[in-house]
């Protein structure tokens, strides 16, 4: 019994070892494919992590992330990969039942479906379900090598052979084992060859074909000397020892036994080293895990930081836009300020000009008064009383002119500063005209100008009393100024729909079209007068226009040179809004 027990014992181990070596080759093809896939599913964080851990052989982490991925994804291919990872991971952890379940969940369209069969077959061997294993291997036995993607034909055949061997179907076993041996000889795969030789030898040995078996054992033993794998050496030597023992060649058997013991020790050492390495690996894994959690924490911190960056970015953008708009506003304001400055400069120039004209006019009238006064006192001294009346009249004319100029100036200033009282009320034009004209009686008399107030007592306009008087004063004053001796001035109204037109008509010098248009212009600039000898700045008419505007009125001029002028002001009959 011992004779059989031992070979069977090591056969088993060989198979499981085969599985490992086989997987190593497989992985290279798988790994490539997995990298490609992970790029394809780059958005799937869990999958990416799963494949990372898978390639790093961190089986537990792989199981965790594949679980997560399966629970959230419904992409069949992705899930199949996950099952593959899980199956492999369980397999590595020797949880064969779980591994089998995972593998069986994989759909038939999966790229690595054949590999799965291989896995399932291997698992079946592990679970001693040799018949099942055979059926799995048979499925993939005859497939094209290219299609097998890293599957080793010899491994399949070897596994098949081994399975038959276990089932004691020696015919089939011999066929497959020899086939795989041939292949391995072809590829010079020493390690596998030793195992195959071992298995073939065991097969023959079990059939009591010692003569065929022993050369295989020897072959295995001699080859084992060239490999470093203690386990393989140990098994080969042990086989030899058993064979020699059975041949009753105890001396040789003892030598083999001793060698076997030696290799066993080495293996134990190796195992111990392996265990230490395992522990180290575990520690390393733990450290890695720590690193991972640290990285995760760091990631969280980074995410938080990113959020902070995002918010601060948004805030900065907002700040920037505020700054930009305020800058724009500033530019706009500056532009407004510039135009205002230009306007102010213009107004200031006008004011300066007004000053110079007014002061010039006042100076000349005061000067005229001075000379007239000295003439007056001279006449008094010489008792030449005849000229006194004429001189006094000249004086009063000068003073009247100067007074009206000053009056206009005052009202102009008040109008500009808007300090003056202003109230629009109903006015009877007739009385206003009467009151205004009353002041000009002496002047009219002096120039012998006939004056007619033909305004109807029923003519009512809405205006501010004081400004209306100022307007009328200026118009009457002008009319007298521009009238010849023995002229005629007529004031009358023309009734329009919403307005009453008040016409001040004289038969004086009149004016040309250019002057007329100049006077009606909306400018603040004063036109210089040609009519020398009389005081005036054009301020009066400007004042009239401004005041009329305030009273919702308008000014029009009709004039003909040498025939006379009609100054027409139109004022509303009813209260205006605003």
């Amino acid at each position, binding site marked *: 019994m011992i004779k059989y027990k031992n070979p069977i014992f090591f056969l088993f181990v060989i198979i499981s070892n085969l599985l490992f070596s086989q997987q190593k080759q497989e992985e290279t093809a798988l790994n490539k494919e997995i990298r490609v896939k992970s790029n394809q599913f780059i958005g799937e964080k869990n999958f990416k992590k799963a494949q990372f851990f898978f390639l790093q052989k961190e089986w537990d982490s792989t199981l965790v992330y594949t679980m997560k991925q399966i629970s959230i994804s419904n992409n069949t291919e992705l899930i199949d990969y996950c099952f593959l990872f899980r199956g492999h991971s369980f397999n590595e952890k020797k949880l064969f039942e779980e591994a089998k379940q995972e593998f069986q969940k994989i759909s038939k369209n999966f790229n690595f479906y054949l590999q799965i069969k291989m896995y399932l077959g291997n698992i079946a061997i592990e679970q001693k379900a040799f018949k099942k294993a055979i059926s799995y291997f048979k499925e993939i036995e005859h497939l094209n090598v290219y299609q097998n993607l890293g599957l080793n034909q010899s491994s399949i055949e070897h596994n098949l052979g081994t399975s038959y061997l276990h089932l004691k179907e020696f015919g089939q076993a011999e066929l497959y084992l020899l086939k795989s041996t041939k292949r391995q000889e072809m590829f010079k795969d020493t390690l596998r060859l030793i195992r195959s030789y071992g298995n073939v030898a065991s097969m023959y040995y079990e059939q009591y074909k010692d003569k065929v078996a022993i050369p295989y054992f020897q072959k295995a033993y001699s080859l084992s000397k060239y490999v470093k794998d203690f386990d393989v050496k140990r098994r080969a030597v042990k086989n030899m020892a058993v064979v020699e023992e059975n041949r009753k060649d105890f001396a040789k058997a003892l030598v083999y036994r001793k060698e076997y013991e030696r290799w066993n020790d080495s293996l134990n050492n190796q195992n111990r080293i392996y265990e230490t390495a395992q522990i180290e690996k575990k520690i390393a894994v733990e450290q890695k895990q720590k690193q991972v959690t640290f990285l995760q924490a760091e990631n969280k911190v980074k995410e938080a930081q990113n959020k902070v960056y995002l918010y601060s970015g948004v805030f900065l953008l907002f700040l920037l836009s505020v700054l930009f708009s305020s800058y724009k506003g500033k530019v706009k304001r500056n532009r407004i300020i510039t135009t205002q400055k230009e306007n102010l400069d213009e107004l200031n120039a006008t004011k300066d000009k007004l000053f110079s004209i007014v002061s010039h006019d006042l100076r000349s009238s005061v000067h005229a008064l001075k000379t007239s006064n000295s003439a007056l006192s001279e006449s008094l001294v010489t008792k030449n009383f005849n000229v006194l009346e004429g001189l006094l009249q000249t004086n009063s004319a000068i003073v009247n002119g100067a007074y009206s100029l000053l009056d206009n100036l005052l009202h102009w200033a008040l109008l500009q500063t808007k300090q003056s009282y202003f109230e629009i009320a109903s006015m*009877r034009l007739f009385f206003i005209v009467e*009151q205004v004209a009353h002041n000009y009686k002496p002047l009219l008399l002096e120039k012998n100008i006939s004056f007619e107030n033909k305004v109807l007592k029923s003519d009512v306009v809405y205006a501010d009393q004081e400004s209306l008087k100022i307007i009328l004063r200026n118009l009457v004053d002008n009319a007298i100024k521009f009238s010849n001796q023995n002229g005629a001035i007529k004031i009358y109204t023309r009734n329009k729909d919403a307005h009453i037109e008040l016409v001040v008509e004289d038969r004086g010098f009149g004016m040309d079209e250019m002057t007329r248009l100049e006077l009606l212009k909306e400018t603040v600039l004063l036109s210089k007068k040609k009519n020398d000898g009389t005081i005036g700045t054009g301020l009066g008419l400007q004042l009239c226009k401004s005041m009329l505007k305030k009273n919702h009125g308008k000014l029009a001029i009709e004039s003909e040179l040498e025939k006379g002028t009609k100054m027409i002001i139109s004022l509303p009959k009813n209260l205006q809004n605003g």
Partner: protein
Amino acid sequence: MDNVNILIIEDTAAESDKLVQVLKTNNYKVVGIAKTYKEALAAFYASDEKIDIVIIDIFLNGIPDGITFAETINAVPGETKPFVFLTSSTDRQIFERAKLTQPFNYLIKPFNEFEILYAIEMAVEKFYAQNDVFLSGEEDTVISSEYLFIKKGRGLKKVLISEIIYIEVEEKYCNIITEKEKFVILISLVKILDLLNNTNFCRTHRNFIVNTEKIMEIIPADNLILLSGNHKATLSDKYKDLIKKVRTLT
């Protein structure tokens, strides 16, 4: 007809002299010239003669006491009189304050004769709330509770209503007959009838309005009313109810 009495409040003698001259030439009677707020109040309340109109200079010695005066007399509704403000400035703030002393009339210095006369008429019209009487030219009389203010020439005259014996209406003219005189005024019938509502006047005929105080004797048979001063008025059947209203000796 009596002259209208005017009180002048003005601190500058030159100004008040000019004013007095203008007023006198137009048959107004200046009953006093006050130079300060105090004087003005004294003159206003203690005058022997009834004051009809006040002309107020806003600035008395540099402060707007004129407005204060107007505010003071306005405080007693029954005692107040029409007034005109005089000022040489058109300062808006001052005007806004002055404007509160309704009715508001003002005149900017310097002013001419026409302007002051116009301002006085406006003041009377506005005060008795009978606008556009003198100015429209269609009427010439403003009625107060005591007087008729009648435009005569460029000025105003007044007639004590209680002195009127009877009024004879002829279209838009009214003959006013008093103890002393007889004259014609231009007034609308509506206004005259208003007069009847609150005084002793009674309508005795389409054309006659009689002061019941002046009735001496009523002779219904002849449709005749004898009035004091030997005046006679007609009593038409339509208005015979009058007899019941009048106190008679019988």
